[in-house]
């Protein structure tokens, strides 16, 4: 994993080659693979993506020490929200269903009384993740969108939006935490099983998902929340 900072002149392929975590970002911007040797700037311009925004997201996502403070005021909040919603869509429509299939396969292959409880644990966890994402999609994000809309229209006349991004900040719990439990159980405590590499595949997926969630949360904490706080200051 690199701590490289991405520039417009960097070839997009080089970024993905150097850090595979960048792969999951591409569909969130509607970028398909097969972009040849084109640079970040070129790929973004081809697809009408704001290059600065793309680079900001990639840098925050790949580099946990990247502090975007000065670049925040240029961020278009609608673009940001669309990106975050796309991430959620990926979790809900791709990642979680695939994990569910793998876990189900594992449970079917491994004959152990504890698998039933593992299934229960996993389903409970998925319910929690879905609740977490739904809260953001249905409450926090629409609030941010409405706020920015109001400010564009008429900042002096803000209707009584009964919400505050501080609530989101407080509620923003670590949904990746339970993945550690799952990893410990599969690595250390389930007895050896002849499951044709399924357990390994699950672990790979879990580790990737965990990483993705941590980086995603960092974008929410370091980009979304500060921006909305700035908007809130404008109306108070």
């Amino acid at each position, binding site marked *: 994993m690199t701590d490289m900072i991405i520039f417009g002149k960097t070839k997009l392929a080089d970024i993905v080659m150097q850090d595979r975590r960048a792969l999951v970002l591409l569909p969130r911007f509607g970028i398909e693979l097969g972009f040849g040797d084109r640079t970040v700037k070129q790929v973004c311009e081809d697809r009408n993506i704001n290059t600065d925004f793309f680079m900001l997201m990639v840098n925050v996502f790949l580099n946990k020490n990247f502090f975007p403070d000065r670049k925040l005021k240029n961020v278009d909040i609608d673009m940001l929200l669309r990106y975050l919603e796309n991430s959620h869509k990926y979790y809900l429509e791709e990642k979680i269903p695939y994990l569910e299939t793998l876990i189900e396969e594992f449970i079917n292959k491994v004959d152990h009384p*504890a698998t039933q*409880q593992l299934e229960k644990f996993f389903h409970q966890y998925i319910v929690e993740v879905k609740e977490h994402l739904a809260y953001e999609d249905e409450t926090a994000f629409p609030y941010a969108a409405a706020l920015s809309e109001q400010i564009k229209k008429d900042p002096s006349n803000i209707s009584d939006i009964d919400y505050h991004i501080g609530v989101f900040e407080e509620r923003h719990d670590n949904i990746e935490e339970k993945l550690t439990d799952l990893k*410990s159980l599969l690595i250390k405590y389930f007895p050896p099983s002849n499951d044709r590499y399924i357990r390994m595949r699950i672990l790979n997926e879990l580790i990737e998902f965990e990483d993705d969630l941590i980086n995603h949360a960092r974008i929410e904490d370091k980009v979304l929340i500060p921006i909305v706080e700035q908007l809130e200051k404008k109306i108070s």
Partner: protein
Amino acid sequence: MNRTLIIAEPSEIIRKGLIHIAESLGFFSSVKEVACSSMLHDSLKKYKPQMVLLNPTFVNPDGLLELKEISGNDLLVAGVIYSLYDDEIVSMFDEVIMVGDTRQKISKKLGDLLDKTPEKNRKKTPETLSARELDVLKLLVKGLSNKEISDKLFISTHTVISHRKNITQKLNIKSVAGLTVYAILNELISMEDVQ
């Protein structure tokens, strides 16, 4: 891990001989020598060795405890004995090397002694749960609250919480649901208990 050996022995012939053997064993990343008892404390502080081969004349019985205090309680001390010594002195060492010992014998003695080290470390941070932690875990996965567990085991809720912290640390599992899977895997409870 620091794999330094200090050989504290006044006789140059024996000291050099021991260094030669110790280096050939491959157990240690470095071997240092101390020829004079007055240098021993400083060397321990400086090198933080894992083991010392010590001529008994370098310390009195209380001095040995002092050595262990200086470099941490995990320090292994093997005595270097030329001839007959008082049992009391011999028994204060973790192991005893006789000058007549063969290389094989020294290798076995030091190897066995080193094998004891992880066991000592394990005592400090065991990954297995203590009996009390198991009690707490069993009740926890049956769905009892901290308060209910504290009533049942006659301990304070504070103690329950501290047990829970240790359990999580040792197993690397935090949630009750995850601990439940662990408990079933290890047959601490049966499926009926959690349904």
